[in-house]
Each structure stands twice: as structure tokens, then as C-alpha cells.
């Protein structure tokens, strides 16, 4: 189950590229769907005058949609293994510009994890200029893996400290308030004992995720459960971007557990 460096790099690039491609297509669709966001209002939040003026130019309809098309093309290039340092820098800068366009985040955690992946990609390419490529990627994948493991660990730990999670009540309430909710009246998740069992399952699994680094087989198991978990998060909360953003970090976890 060991994942060597070349395979880990390819898997990481393909999954990150795929995640970026799906996001870019969604952003292009949002140009027509969104009637609330208005840069003429939002620009007031940018405190630096010259940055505000520069963003005024970049967020006009043509340059902005051009940037999204370019992002999609670079995501495809990344998937095909043709993204060099220039692409890594551009993808990182575009992620930053898109975040600013959406007042710091469009989709919360998935934006943050996408930025972690892009920072890893940027690290690998920038460090390659100073050291050999293998070392650079080694550092980059460790960066991505530690961030991803931290996300699970923190998420599990903060739940452990909350009585409503320990009792299972929070799970039912959040599912009831989810975008695809509310839960049907006879849903299994309304049973307090099952809700508590599920909650403890998540808390323990998330809190113990850093143990994945001990062994590649353990990492594979943790990542498989994580994929199912993120699918369930999508199924109930509609968070499709979370699924792909976190999946793109799994090659880094598997590689670090194999190293």
C-alpha cells in the first residue's frame, strides 16, 4: 500500500486539478446566477486604495471571466502533468483574487483546503529552484498532509469539548438545518442513541486521524473512511467542494505515511 513519490505527485496533481476545474466551472455559472454580490459595494472593504483600483480593473466582467477560463485551462494542464512553476504561481494568485472577490471565502473550508493544496503546489515548484525536485515535493506533500491531518484533528477535538456533540444532539440539529433538510420525521438520526453513536464515531475517528502517519495501511483505512465521511457531508449538507478539496490531500497523507 506504500505510495512512492512520483505516484503521490501525479495523484495529487490530478485530484487538485480536478477539484480546481469543477470549482472554475461553478464560478463561471455563478456569473449568471448571482444577483446579490456586487463589487461596486464590496470594494469598500478593501482598505488599500491602489489594491482597490487594481481589483476594480480585474473584476470587470471580461477580465474576471477570462481569469476563470484561464484557471480552468491551467487546472486541466495540472491534471495532465504539464503545470510548471508559472502555472503554480498563477493558480495561487488566481485563488487569492477569487477569495477577495467573494469577501474572503465563497465556500468556507473548501476554499481554505484548496488554498492549502495550491500552497503545496507552489512550495514544490519554488523550492525546486533551490534544491532537487524530490526534496521540494517531499516538503510540499508534508505541508499538505499536516494541514489536512490538522483539519480532522481540530474538528474532532472541538466536538469532543462540546456537550451537545457528546450527547449526539448536535448531529440531529445540524442535519435538520441542512440545505437538503429537514430530516424526515421517522429518520434514524432522530434516535438519540444512534445519533450519539454516530457523533462519537466522528469524534474518535477525526481525533485519531494523525495516527494515520504511523503506517501506510492505517492511512489507507483512515482516508477511505474520510472519503465516505465527505460523501455523507455532501449528501446531507450539499458541500460537494469539500469532498474534492479534501480528497486531493489524500495522496500527501498516504505518501507521508509510507515515507
Amino acid at each position, binding site marked *: 500500500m506504500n505510495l512512492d513519490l512520483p505516484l503521490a505527485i501525479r495523484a495529487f496533481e490530478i485530484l487538485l486539478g480536478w477539484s480546481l476545474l469543477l470549482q472554475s466551472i461553478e464560478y463561471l455559472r455563478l456569473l449568471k446566477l448571482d*444577483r446579490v454580490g456586487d463589487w461596486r459595494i464590496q470594494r469598500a472593504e478593501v482598505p488599500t486604495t491602489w489594491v482597490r483600483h487594481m481589483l476594480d480593473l480585474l473584476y470587470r466582467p471580461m477580465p474576471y471571466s477570462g481569469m476563470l477560463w484561464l484557471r480552468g485551462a491551467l487546472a486541466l494542464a495540472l491534471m495532465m502533468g504539464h503545470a510548471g512553476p508559472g502555472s503554480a504561481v498563477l493558480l495561487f494568485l488566481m485563488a487569492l483574487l477569487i*477569495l477577495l472577490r467573494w469577501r474572503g471565502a465563497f465556500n468556507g473550508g473548501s476554499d481554505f483546503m484548496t488554498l492549502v493544496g495550491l500552497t503545496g503546489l507552489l512550495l514544490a515548484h519554488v523550492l525546486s529552484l533551490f534544491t532537487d525536485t524530490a526534496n521540494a515535493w517531499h516538503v510540499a506533500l508534508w505541508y499538505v498532509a499536516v494541514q489536512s491531518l490538522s483539519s480532522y484533528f481540530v474538528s474532532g477535538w472541538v466536538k469532543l469539548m462540546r456537550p*451537545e456533540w457528546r450527547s449526539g444532539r448536535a448531529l440531529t440539529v445540524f442535519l435538520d438545518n441542512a*440545505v437538503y433538510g429537514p430530516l424526515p420525521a421517522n429518520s434514524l438520526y432522530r434516535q438519540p442513541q444512534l445519533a450519539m453513536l454516530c457523533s462519537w464515531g466522528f469524534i474518535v475517528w477525526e481525533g485519531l486521524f494523525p495516527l494515520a502517519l504511523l503506517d501506510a495501511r492505517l492511512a489507507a483505512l483512515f482516508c477511505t473512511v474520510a472519503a465516505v465521511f465527505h460523501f455523507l457531508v455532501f449528501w446531507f449538507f450539499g458541500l460537494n467542494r469539500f469532498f474534492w478539496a479534501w480528497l486531493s490531500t489524500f495522496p500527501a497523507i498516504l505518501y507521508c505515511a509510507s515515507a
Partner: protein
Amino acid sequence: MDTIMRAMELTALLILAYFAWLAVALRKRQRTVQGPWLFLLRAFFPNWHFFHGLGPAPRLWVRAQSQPGQWSNWQAVYPRLPRQASHLLHNPSVNLALSHQNLVEHLATDIHDLAENADIRDCVSYQLVTRLASDAVQGGSWADTPMLQRPDGFTPQAFQFEIRLLHLGQAGEAQLLLSPVIPLRP
């Protein structure tokens, strides 16, 4: 060989120390650092606190006026959309709806943090929520799903919105903000 082993042990120790520090840090009360750039660049400092606890949840409510004195009922603007398996690949309408709910939560935070003598109407979040409320009363939708569950069926001349704080899992709610009556442009 010894050097490699020592380096690996050191790496393992560092990782262990990092997660131990993380666990201890999470138990302490977090200091909130604020600033316009920190808000816009918060993606660089993720806290990974997803669905961490049941707290007050802000909700947007709107009502429309067809002619002076004739108001519709208050209705919540809260994202509820039908699930589709294809959303795993392409889900712009749900993601947009969720970003609108985030906007309402940002407005609630801005109201809470509002400085004395400051006017909430100057806040970007207030102005954007006004646009959201305006869109909702004028039959706006998230793709094919209307923002209001029971569209009023008349042409509104003006509208009003309210931010209410709901305590998830408990009965009752509190009013956080009531907007003035806002005329709609013909």
C-alpha cells in the same frame, strides 16, 4: 543509517509535539484578531472548527408591501434545495445559497461588533443582505428553487427585512435587526 533513524525519530517527535500543542491550544480561550485585511485573507488562517457547537443562528426574514399599509406575511429566506446526485460534480446553486446564508451570518457578526455611533447601513454586509432581501421579495431563486417557499403573487412596491437569532435545537428566537421600509425601484 543511524543518522537517518535519528532524523526519523526527530520528525516523529516534532509531529507528536505539534499535535499535542494543537490539543492544548484548543482548550484555551482563543483571542480574536480583527482587521479588514485579516477578514479578506482569513483563508490563510483556517481554524477548522466545522459545525463545532450549537449557538445562536441568524436567519433572514422578509416581507413585501404591495401598497401602503398592505403587507405580506414575514417569510424566512433560508436555503432549502432538492438533492441531486449530480451535485457532487456541479452544485453552483446550492453553493450560492450557502454563501447567501453566510452573508446573513456576517451581518449578524457586524451588528454585534458595531462601534458606538456607527451606522449598520454603512456596512457592506448590510448592503448585500438588502440586495438579497430585495431579490427574494421580487421572486428571486437559487437556480430553479424560489428563495421564498410561498411567493406572494403580487408586485411589491417596498420591502422590509429582519435578522432574527434562532437558538438551534431550542424554541424561541430574538430580533437582532429590523430594517426600515425600503422602496423598490420600478
